[in-house]
């Protein structure tokens, strides 16, 4: 926003404008570089040349293992036990299988909406596995793997998806808008990128809390978002304020090639999202998002960097491909070829790649795979059926938590709703809600 206010009284002499106290820079004679306060380390050049982005090589993509699961980074040493790797692989498998089940459930009209994360399991599980449990997480909506890795239970997933009385969101949010206080993951909201400056603020809060109480463990914030969300103004706001305030936050971009129907060519013309981090003065890396180990290694290192120098932001751009439709409300074959999708599914997907690595190491087999899939499917279906049978939350919950306490207006409105249901009982189905209409009493 422009502020014209300081110029309003036309008669005000210029000499009364404030002096700049924060900098005592001046341009010295014969200096080889600029000393303007806005860019102090810039050398002078005598040739008139614009920087042409196309002439700068694209930032490289870090990977540890190739598509066959073979290590390509000579320095790569797995830092997890076999059992730990297996657990994380199962987490990826779980989200993938839950996706299949719930996508179909939506098609049958049993849940109102769903979004799968197919193709992006490694970005979520790999990065989450590198965080500490006390680190705070903000998600966009395609991060089931983060919830799963941190310990979100099958029952918790299903309670939210069916918006039943066990849903901590009290049936207020659309499916897939999970949240968990216990796991330090903030509740998901639909507006894109709003969580990013919030993540910067939360990271600043963590930094301040530790400064005020040094016995607290060092903590970082991780914020997930897609490449489409990075076009929002909030992305710009978040990275800039995180850099200027030294916030220990890791921005993790899932660049999966599409924002609903919009391909990246219509999303941006620069070198992806990573190149922007440099512009904000942020340590940045691009990784192969289908490589679990690369994502994990990058996030582990990012966490260290984020805690350096009193705190600073880091940007990770994880390159993936959105194998699935955007959501259950989307048919992606309206804007991309089926064969392109099938290619990705077949040639390179994160679950298959980690599986190959595990098989190469001799800790996984077709038999184990089949057993794992069967067990996970069974677990999901049991929780699915239980969640579907549960009552919905109290109708009263639609009025609560707007403010810390219900206002007189809200209490009056709740009673009006009760009266109308009493008067027209045939018009409202309250039976599926916990306590029926009785929850609408003033308490």
């Amino acid at each position, binding site marked *: *926003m422009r*502020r*014209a*206010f*300081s110029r*309003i*009284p036309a008669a*005000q002499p210029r000499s*009364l*404008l*404030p*002096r700049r*106290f924060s900098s005592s820079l001046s341009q010295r004679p014969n200096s080889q570089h600029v000393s303007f306060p806005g860019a102090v380390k810039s050398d002078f050049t005598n040739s008139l040349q614009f920087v042409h982005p196309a002439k700068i090589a694209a930032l490289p993509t870090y990977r540890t293992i190739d598509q066959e699961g073979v290590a390509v980074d000579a320095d790569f040493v797995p830092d997890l036990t076999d059992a730990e790797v297996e657990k994380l692989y199962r987490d990826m498998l779980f989200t993938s299988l839950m996706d299949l089940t719930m996508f179909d459930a939506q098609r049958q009209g049993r849940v109102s909406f769903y979004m799968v994360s197919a193709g992006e399991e490694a970005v979520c599980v790999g990065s989450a596995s590198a965080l500490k449990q006390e680190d705070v997480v903000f998600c966009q909506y395609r991060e089931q793997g983060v919830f799963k890795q941190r310990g979100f239970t099958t029952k918790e997933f299903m309670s939210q998806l069916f918006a039943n009385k066990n*849903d*901590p*969101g*009290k049936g*207020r*949010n659309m499916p897939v808008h999970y*949240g*968990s*206080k216990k796991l330090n993951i*903030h*509740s998901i*909201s639909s*507006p894109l990128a*709003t969580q*990013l*400056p*919030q*993540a*910067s*603020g*939360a*990271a*600043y*809060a*963590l930094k*301040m*809390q530790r*400064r*005020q109480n040094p016995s607290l463990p060092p903590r970082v*914030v991780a914020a997930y978002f897609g490449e489409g969300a990075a076009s929002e*103004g*909030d992305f*710009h*706001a*978040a990275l*800039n*304020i995180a850099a*200027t*305030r030294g916030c220990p936050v890791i921005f993790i971009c899932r660049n999966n090639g599409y924002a609903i129907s919009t391909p990246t060519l219509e999303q941006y013309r620069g070198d992806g999202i990573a190149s922007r981090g440099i512009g904000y003065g942020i340590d940045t890396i691009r990784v192969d998002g289908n490589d679990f180990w690369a994502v994990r290694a990058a996030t582990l290192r990012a966490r260290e960097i984020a805690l350096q120098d009193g705190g600073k932001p880091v940007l990770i751009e994880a390159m993936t491909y959105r194998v699935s439709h955007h959501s259950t409300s989307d048919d992606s074959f309206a804007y991309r070829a089926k064969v392109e999708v099938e290619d990705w599914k077949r040639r390179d997907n994160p679950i298959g790649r980690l599986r190959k690595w595990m098989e190469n190491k001799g800790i996984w087999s077709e038999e184990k795979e089949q057993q794992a899939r069967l067990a996970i499917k069974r677990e999901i279906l049991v929780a699915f059926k239980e969640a579907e049978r549960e009552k919905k939350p109290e109708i009263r*919950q639609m009025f609560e*938590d*707007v*403010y*810390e306490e219900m*206002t*007189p*207006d809200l209490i009056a409105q709740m009673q009006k709703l009760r009266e109308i249901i009493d008067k027209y009982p045939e018009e409202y189905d309250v039976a599926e809600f916990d306590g029926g209409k009785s929850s609408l009493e003033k308490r």
Partner: protein
Amino acid sequence: MKVPRLILTARPSPAALLCRASSVVSRRFYSSHPPNARLNLPIDYTSTPILAHHAQTALGNPELPDEVRNGPTQRMNLFQAINDALSTALSEDERVMIFGEDVAFGGVFRCTMKLAETFGSDRVFNTPLCEQGIMGFAIGVAAEGMRPVAEIQFADYVYPAFDQLVNEAAKFRYRDGSCGRSVGGLTVRMPCGGVGHGALYHSQSPEALFTHIPGLRVVMPRSPIQAKGLLLSAIRSNDPVVFMEPKILYRAAVEQVPVGPYVLPLSKAEIMRSGKDVTIVSYGQPLYNCWAAIEKAEKDLGITVELIDLRTVYPWDKETVFTSVQKTGRCIVVHESMVNAGIGAEVAASIQEDEKTFIRMEAPVQRVAGWSTHTGLMYERFNMPDVARIYDSIKKAVTEY
């Protein structure tokens, strides 16, 4: 209204500041009053009984706690009272932090003067020039249990932060459900209202936009005593609060302010003077115009007028307004912002909706507010609810119905 940066550079003594304050209105460059005016005279803030010019008036407020009522007072203008409240909040709770554009050197209106020096640059700091960032950052800070006081330099520039306020801050507690997190620690301060020459983007009062949003509390003080008490309430409140400061009062309104910390209740209106013939409901700076109009009308018409300051415009104190209107049978709502879908619309609709109040009405509810246009530089004096327009409404209410 002089530009605050002028004051900064001149570095006047506090005494000079007050001197400047009292001269603000009479020396306004773009607005003056016609020589024969009887109603639209400049508000004399040095004598208006709305402000507590003596310690005993200030301490007589029954809303103050006993220890404050027995304590000293200090002469402060509105920006100094805000500064006092912020300083109190920072010293009593280490979770409080203050940030926004240019707050570190004291703020363009001097509200955060000396706070960075006293409480450290970790807790009082500048942000990049980006309102959506300030608001998003503040929400994140509050979501992790801190109590941020974010400043938007002018209410006119809050719109880039609208998404964060409406979709995020207001809904945070609701959507988090039994997880129990909220951004209740959040307070957003913003200077608002006409200032004589602020034109389109330094004059707005967007409070009605926020009153349409469940989850936010919207507060506007009328004086230094109120500013301090309501701001401390806002900061301690566990709901996000939009705190709007009438910038014309920053230096103009000077009164004796109790030195000790105190809070004034949110969502509670105050009856400033009682009367039996007409009720006027207003908030913020127009209360001074209402007072002046009431004094003239009472003398001319032989009536008494009840004046109510809403203080919190959402969720607002319906009970106090209804009780008054049931007594007087006539109601006028006065505010600076545009009449369309403004606070007046809400008050008027609520009155006609409330059976007990509606049947007592002897005249239509009138709204004296800004016209449904923008605040063009040269037209402000014709746009604001001035003394003549309020006087005329009172007269209409009692003589035409």
